[in-house]
């Protein structure tokens, strides 16, 4: 059953149209990957879903209700949390405070707590008093993921979580994804690292110039089809 859907989603930066009628579906308990080159509209899609970017109300449905018109804080309260591109940790807050601020508007109890996040990423427990921005890139990414989990989201939006990280660190972070999914969160991952995305996703959407150009189960997508959808026919 669809937990989150977009129907003909459009988005604009001023007069510039960044999304042109995007349709995606995230089923409950599933992991969806959005892949595409720089400027394809992947981050814009997550910004629209998370409420940072305004979009038509009915274009985004969450649990059968329109949420496109909601602002980011209300979207989070409905159960959609985001790990933003570039981590965006708060420099004034320690690691633990960065995690706690993720639970600022949490309603009731859920699976995720400080202890559970520290179990998932044990290194953060050792660094809990350090300023969040004093950590390595990989550890900062762990804080950003933990911070989003602290709201006990039903949907976790992950924007380019491998960006700028060493392969061994990326592997560690992606190793946490099954655990996150087992906690009950459905996941949308935006990635440029195609192999990572295909490895964890149940369904993949490929974007180019603000449109979905290919979609399907990872096993059904050929390398050539992905290449063409990623770079366009001319490049293929």
């Amino acid at each position, binding site marked *: 059953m669809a937990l989150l859907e977009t129907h003909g989603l459009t988005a604009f930066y001023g007069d510039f149209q960044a999304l042109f009628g995007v349709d995606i579906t995230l089923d409950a308990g599933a992991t969806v990957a959005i892949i595409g080159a720089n400027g394809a509209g992947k981050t814009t899609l997550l910004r629209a879903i998370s409420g940072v970017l305004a979009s038509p109300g009915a274009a985004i449905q969450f649990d059968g209700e329109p949420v496109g018109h909601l602002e980011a*804080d209300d979207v989070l309260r409905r159960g959609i949390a*985001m790990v933003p591109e570039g981590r965006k940790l708060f*420099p004034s807050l320690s690691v633990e405070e960065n995690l706690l*601020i*993720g639970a*600022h508007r949490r309603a009731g109890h859920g699976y995720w707590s400080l202890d559970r996040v520290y179990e998932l990423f044990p290194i953060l427990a050792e660094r809990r008093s350090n300023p969040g921005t004093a950590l390595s890139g990989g550890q900062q990414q762990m804080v950003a993921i933990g911070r989003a989990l602290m709201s006990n989201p039903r949907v976790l939006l992950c924007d380019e979580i491998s960006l700028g990280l060493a392969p061994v660190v990326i592997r560690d972070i992606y190793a946490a994804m099954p655990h996150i999914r087992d906690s009950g969160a459905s996941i949308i991952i935006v990635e440029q690292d195609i192999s990572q995305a295909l490895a964890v996703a149940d369904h993949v959407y490929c974007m180019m110039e603000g449109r979905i150009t290919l979609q399907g189960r990872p096993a059904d997508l050929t390398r050539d089809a992905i290449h063409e959808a990623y770079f366009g026919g001319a490049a293929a």
Partner: protein
Amino acid sequence: MIWVDTIIQGVLLGGLYALFAAGLSLVFGIMRLVNLAHGDLIVFSAYMILLLVSLLNLDPFLATAIAAPLMFALGWGLQKLVLNRTLGDDILPPLLVTFGLSIVVQNALLEGFSADSRRLSAGALETSSLSLGGVNIGLMPLLTFLSAVLVIFVLNRLFYRTALGRAFRATSDDPVTASLMGIKPASVFATATGIAMIVVTIAALYLGMRANFDPTIGPARLIYAFEAVIIGGLGSLWGTLLGGVIIGVAQTVGAAINPEWQILAGHVAFLVVLVLRPRGLLPRAVD
């Protein structure tokens, strides 16, 4: 001994300046907003306390306890309805709007209360003193200073030890990402201004009990507050207390040398710090 006395009086006077400045420092630290009406809001609050004292025949301290939540509501509404609309990348709109607000408040007070000087009566407290090792310390200046320390301590605890303080700091760092955490930046800013207005009310109480006030003295209080904030380091609460003390000591020492130099000495101290430490003595990271 007279110099020891002078410096102690200066430190205690600094408490009053720190009270003037604490609300300004809080608001600046969270939303980078310089409220040019801050001094006038202190005077406005002093008149509110005076009104409660006169109409209900209350003790000034009790009147302050009633005025504080009213001022919180006023600050919350002012931020939510007016000042939030001026915040953005351009620093000019909030300056212009608060400058206009300053003029509106001054003229409204002139219209409502005339230009006559007023004072809040503190009774015997005004003339009571303690004798400590040959130095006489007025109870009112001592109470002012202790109140300033308490206010700064409470604000610091709020800022660094509570969920609200975390929200203040996160919103100050990055309002967009803070909204992804479920925080409403507009409400956080309104709450911060409301709290600043509670501090303003406490400052107004001591302003009114220690000296005469009239509708036009707000801008001078703003300058003292601004200087204390800059000396201490922008956004640093303990720095603000230190800044107030430095201005206070400079003024009393200046006055001891030549009574005409009192005000000038405070401004000179500010300029010296500005030249030597443009970021202030205790930048925010030290808090």
